[in-house]
């Protein structure tokens, strides 16, 4: 790795980090190559706090907060943003509400003011609640017709039975219909607050000036009694292969998701699993899975594997879109690759290829302000150390073939898979 590469990676010397007295963490790094700035962050108010009869509540709240605040209407918030070519969005996942935006650097104060008002003083206007509800329900109607979305949903319901990860964050038609304005207001009051809020700023501004701007916008926010997120319940392991099909009549293609649990992001074997996954279904043209299902058999336009690792138990999945009559054949080829992967792991050459790919692609993933902000947020979230990318090449290169096959065997048992399909 050249010296120039390394200076384009974040390090403790160039990422300014500070914590405000109300608990907000700020991470800032400058990039004067373009006159723009990016903000990105999260606070712990995700769907973990929902009850089963109100699934989709956190998502509903996060989509509502920019639709009217004590100072501004929905239209005036977006008018301020769009008039200067800025953007800001808020959405939610299982653990967190996430926000992100960008602007010309001259408009950073505006961006932070609108973020601050949206997080602190949303008013949930009744007409906006109903307008959004119609949009969310239409989103669910479209989801019900999407073979890929529905195969994912079935997969997660089986893999994470009776666990928050198995419940769709956008809810179901009945639950979204049952959410009231009071529910939204209450959820916001109890769970939105500065404790646990992390914000990264990257762009054409000195890091300390950026931190001062955040402090000005969010430093006085206080929420006494902001609730701690509940702990994740234990998971019931899959004992034998489970298959589920969701019928969607009239479709010309079916989607297939096959998989199992994977490591969380902090697991010591995360890097080994990640490199293994690259060989299995990413490297080149979608790895071994792509080679078998697409290149050799010609069964699918896409067939790949992916590893989803976060705070809690991750998932390790293979997905493909195939003609309904080829479902069985595609599944057979995927299972064959999984058995081979667990039995013999990866070759020396395959591992070296993926290691080189991981190291080589780094500058590209960090070139934009958004990519950089996402990277330093992840470093913070998973305690990787601000010198993580300085050490990264070593972490990648030290993984051995034995490490990969051990991770493969730990997580993947070809006799205990979840197989989800959706289509006609």
């Amino acid at each position, binding site marked *: 790795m*050249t010296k*120039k*590469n390394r200076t*384009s990676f974040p390090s403790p010397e160039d990422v300014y980090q500070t914590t405000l007295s109300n608990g907000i963490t700020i991470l800032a790094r400058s*990039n004067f*190559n*373009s*006159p*723009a700035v990016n903000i990105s962050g999260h606070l712990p108010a995700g769907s973990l706090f929902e009850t089963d009869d109100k699934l989709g509540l956190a998502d509903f709240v996060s989509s509502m907060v920019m639709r009217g605040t004590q100072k501004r209407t929905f*239209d005036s918030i*977006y*008018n301020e*943003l*769009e*008039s*200067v*070519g*800025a*953007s800001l*969005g808020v959405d939610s996942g299982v653990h967190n509400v996430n926000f992100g935006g960008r*602007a*010309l650097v001259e408009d950073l104060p505006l961006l932070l003011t609108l973020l601050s008002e949206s997080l602190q003083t949303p008013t949930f206007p009744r007409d906006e609640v109903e*307008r959004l509800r*119609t*949009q969310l329900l*239409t989103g669910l*109607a*479209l989801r*019900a*017709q*999407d*073979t890929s979305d529905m195969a994912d949903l079935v997969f997660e319901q089986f893999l994470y039975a009776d666990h928050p990860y198995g419940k769709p964050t956008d809810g179901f038609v009945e639950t979204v219909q049952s959410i009231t304005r009071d529910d939204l207001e209450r959820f916001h009051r109890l769970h939105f607050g500065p404790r646990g809020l992390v914000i990264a700023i990257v762009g054409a501004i000195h890091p300390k000036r950026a931190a001062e701007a955040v402090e000005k916008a969010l430093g006085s926010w206080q929420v006494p009694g902001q609730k701690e997120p509940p702990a994740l319940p234990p998971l019931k392991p899959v004992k034998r292969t489970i298959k589920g099909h969701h019928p969607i*009549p*009239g*479709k*010309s*293609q079916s989607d297939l998701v096959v998989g199992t649990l994977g490591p969380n992001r902090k697991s010591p074997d995360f890097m080994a699993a990640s490199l293994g996954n690259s060989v299995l279904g990413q490297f*080149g*043209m979608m790895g071994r899975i792509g*080679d078998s299902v*697409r*290149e*050799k*058999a*010609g*069964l*699918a*336009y896409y067939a790949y594997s992916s590893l989803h690792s976060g705070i809690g138990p991750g998932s390790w999945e293979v997905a493909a879109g*195939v003609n309904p009559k080829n479902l069985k054949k595609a599944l057979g080829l995927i299972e064959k690759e999984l058995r081979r992967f667990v039995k013999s792991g990866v070759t020396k050459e395959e591992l070296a*290829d993926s290691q*080189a*790919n991981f190291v*080589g*692609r780094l*500058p*590209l993933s*960090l*070139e*934009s*302000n958004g990519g950089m902000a996402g990277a330093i947020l992840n470093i913070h979230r998973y305690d990787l150390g601000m010198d993580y990318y300085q050490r990264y090449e070593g972490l990648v290169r030290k993984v051995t073939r034995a490490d990969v096959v051990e991770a493969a065997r730990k997580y993947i048992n070809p006799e205990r898979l979840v197989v989800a399909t959706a289509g006609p």
Partner: protein
Amino acid sequence: MKHPVTQVQLKNGMKVMLKEIRTAPIVSSWIWYKVGSRDEPTGRTGVSHWSEHMMFKGTKKFPGNVLDKAISREGGRWNASTSRDSTRYYETMPAAKIDLALRLEADRMTRSLFDPKEVASERTVIISEREGSENEPMFLLGEAVQHASFRVHPYHHEIIGDMADLRSMTREDLYDHYRSFYVPNNAVLSLAGDFETKSMLKRIKELFESIPQGETPPRLARPEPERNGEVRLTVEGPGETAFTQIAYPFPNATHPDYFPLQVLESLLNGASGLSYKTCRLYRALVDKGLAVDVSGWAEATIDPYLYRFTIVHRPDKEPREALAALDDEIKRMQDKPAPTAEIQRAVKQARAVFAYGSENITHQAFWMGYTSMFSDYGWYTTYLKKLAKVTPGDVQRVAREYFQPKKRVVGVYLPKGKAA
């Protein structure tokens, strides 16, 4: 300008564009061929896109399974796409490794194998790609509207091609297409990133200049006659959500009216790349409770193409109500000149979107080549200036001229419920 562009034509007619940007250790290389779905006669629709797939199946020097691994091993990102007017291939690589991409592109310009076995297995992959698209109501509706909009001009079919042709096309059809259009005098190479222009140009000449010039392939272009009378159509399919797509003929990218129309688009539908919740149509349709969403877009094309609006309907409203509201807003643009402040807003939006784009080397190399397909790079560098010159009177005039009901196609997707 911050980063000057060097433009050179090689002896064999290939055009080269180079832009040094030393902000990150990355180079992005794009090669563009002047061929797309509009160059396909009936019976061979989809041949450009399928040929693009075949370009990844290897040459003698870079066999298929070696090719993708070689790029990935260096941490590169690469892909290709086919549009109506062009076919393009890119590699974005760590700067020190870009030579591999150049060697590969020089080799596969003339030496791709199109192995019959690979053609056979790719046929089912592409059929699968089309079947995946057919799962989407918007694909089915868009294809029907496009087809109804062009009876004569070859913009009439989807880029992926018709299923009948995907089933019947032969290896020879594909190979003929490749050999006719993949010649250096029909190509543009655009590079941006961390390199030294002089030595890069020398290397490009070493690799590409010896490739013999071919006959410049003629392009299909049968001008679409003007239509006098609105066309209405419906598409039925599964689901619970109705969509409407409205398509108006729209001028090509080098037409002087293109820029006032860009401002008009920004007022009606918002600026591309930004949220659009305060544009006129969102306020009139979504805020008023008549639709779930409304959006619109044009494409920069060589010949006149389309401006399309898409409405996602509410389950409790009839599609015609939202369409009537859209027509009212267009009429408002035609009746009254837009305030100057709204035009200035459109210019500021575009300035911000340009700034975001400059963070990305791949994007920088893309725009050089992309604009060369229908105009030249000046189209891009003078874009903001041209936008700033647009007057309220210009916007009103183009609204009247281009958005006439008798010239449009209106398509509605009618959902047949869950159990279609």
